[in-house]
């Protein structure tokens, strides 16, 4: 970078900081608070799932129970657990008192801090609301682990995702390299055909493809989900090819002069410089496979022992929809792994979407 360029770059940065400073603090607080509220609402299902998954089932049906995981507050009085109730005060607030002796006309209440201090309260104890305290249980997770056959579904999902990802990355790197670097007749046309296949709806090819797998005896095995991944896919080839096009050709040519063939150039020059896009395709396909529902739905429908977490979760939540906490715990157990992967690799994800989305 020359001195003049550096100077102008500094000027741009200075100007940007200046324009940022012009925005009033009040506006910044307003915009950020607004976005934070929207973000909170966007994530409401996740908070609700997490909260419900650690709730005791009794809480869900109890009247007046809070949204967060909680249990009725109790205090020990003379060796017995007594409920804590909210007693209305003259000023409209509530006071928490221990219900020592419930009665229809009058009840004996005690101070939770010192249960020896009791008062007699006029009124039916039934009109008093329970007080709740925060309480979370992981019991649902333990039960779901067994009932859902979680370890098996997890293993199935991981094997399908790992093998499919290997197939996708290997085949797509090879094909992308062919399109990016090697000259052959009809290359441009074939590339156009490839991009066009992205827009062909899956239903048009579904029925003959299914009948093909049926006749091969592959239905109710993992083969229809795994074999096609080794035959590349337009989306990922496009992504990798676009990236490889940005690698300077001088590197290939230098290797070529030293006598390297296409294979060595791919291995020693192109792949070492393509790691960002290879990682992007790896995480993309892994998450895609983890979340794939249609494939396992049609090819594994009668084989529960071969199914994946998505199918298992759907079946489980239908079966146990009356048992609040179970479907929620199962859902958290299904979404945890892609979410963790996303947090670890988020910058590759975002880059991948941008390349495929805009440069097309």
């Amino acid at each position, binding site marked *: 970078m020359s001195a003049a360029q550096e100077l102008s770059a500094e000027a741009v940065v200075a100007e940007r900081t200046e324009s940022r400073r012009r925005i009033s603090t009040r506006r*910044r607080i307003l915009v950020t608070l607004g976005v934070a509220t929207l973000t909170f609402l966007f994530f409401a299902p996740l908070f609700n799932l997490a909260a419900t998954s650690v709730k005791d089932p009794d809480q869900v049906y109890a009247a007046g129970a809070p949204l967060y995981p909680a249990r009725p507050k109790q205090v020990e009085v003379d060796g017995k657990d007594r409920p804590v109730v909210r007693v209305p005060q003259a000023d409209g607030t509530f006071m928490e008192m221990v219900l020592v002796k419930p009665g229809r006309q009058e009840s004996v209440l005690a101070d939770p801090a010192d249960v020896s201090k009791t008062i007699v309260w006029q009124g039916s104890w039934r009109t008093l609301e329970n007080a709740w305290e925060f309480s979370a249980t992981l019991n649902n997770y333990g039960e779901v682990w067994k009932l859902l056959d979680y370890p098996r579904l997890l293993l199935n999902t991981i094997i399908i995702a790992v093998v499919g990802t290997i197939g996708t990355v290997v085949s797509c790197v*090879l094909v992308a390299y062919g399109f990016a670097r090697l000259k052959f007749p009809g290359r441009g046309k074939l590339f156009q055909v490839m991009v066009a296949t992205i827009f062909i709806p899956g*239903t048009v090819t579904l*029925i003959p493809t299914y009948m*093909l797998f049926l006749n091969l005896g592959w239905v109710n095995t993992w083969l229809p989900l795994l074999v096609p991944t080794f035959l590349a896919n337009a989306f990922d080839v496009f992504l990798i090819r676009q990236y490889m096009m940005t690698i300077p050709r001088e590197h290939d040519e230098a290797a070529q002069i030293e006598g390297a063939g296409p294979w060595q150039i791919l291995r020693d020059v192109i792949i070492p410089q393509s790691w960002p896009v290879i990682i992007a395709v790896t995480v993309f396909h892994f998450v895609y496979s983890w979340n794939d529902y249609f494939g396992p739905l049609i090819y594994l429908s009668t084989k529960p022992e071969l199914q994946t977490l998505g199918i298992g*979760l759907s079946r489980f*939540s239908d079966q146990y929809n009356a048992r609040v906490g179970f*479907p929620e715990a199962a859902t958290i157990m299904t979404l945890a792994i892609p979410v963790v992967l996303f947090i670890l690799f988020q910058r590759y994800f975002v880059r991948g979407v941008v390349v495929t989305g*805009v440069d097309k």
Partner: protein
Amino acid sequence: MERREAQWGFLFISPWIIGLAVFYAFPIVASLLLTFFDASLTGAERNFTFIGLDNWIRFFNDPMAWKALGVTVRFTLLTLPVGIFVPLAVALVLNSKALVAPGLFRVLWFLPYVIPFVAGIIGWLGVIGQNGPLNTLIELFGVQDAPLWTNDPGLIYPALVLMGIWGIGSAIVVYLSGLGGVPTELYEAAMVDGAGWWASLRHITLPMITPVIFYNLILGVAGSLQYFLVPQVLNGGNGNPEGSTLFFNIYLFKSFFTYQDPSYGATLAWVLFLITLGLSLILFGTQKRWVYYAGGDR
């Protein structure tokens, strides 16, 4: 030398060539041919008889198919504007210079995109369900018997749109990259001319990102016409309430898997394919009127 390079080239792309032949060329031709045959999926009596246009005539006289098509079209008209403008609005806010920690918010708004959609359905059902927080909130405002969204033909589509809202992450990212590509000089020039926030949005931002809007529109049309998985998971494709979730692809899926009729299924698939293709061509035709490519005509 050149011949050798061409040989290597074909060798490298051969996995895709095989895939193209087996998973695109063969099934497309086969499914088109199927529409002119009466074929059975399996079983002892494996028949395969040429019946001309009977499947197509059957489609034109099939009230269920037209009803299902109507459901899909109605839902598309509702979900498409949401799918185009909600991510755009979110991207505009996330792009605001007044936003503190924009990087964090961008990551958060993309995150649910990686959550399995079955998990999204269960999550949103929890929020809008009978004892969920939304109805608790509605009841706080004094409404008795808050609605059961998924049982009400008038509320099921908004509920379905909500259940799909976690999928907007990729559209947001695409819009954000489009917004990042708008030259800052344009805004500075507009500011000098005294343009406010709305004028800048209307006359600079929106025209400059019309290619991205167009891209999301094309993908959105194709995606909504193919709508299948959410209703399938929600109620097993039974069409409840009152047939409002009997989407075209649910009907196609049933024709094939439940009624074991591959040739009619293939006919329905081709009907939808032709509709999608036609709509896409029409949209491409309107491009000249409203899509602005800064780099000149492409």
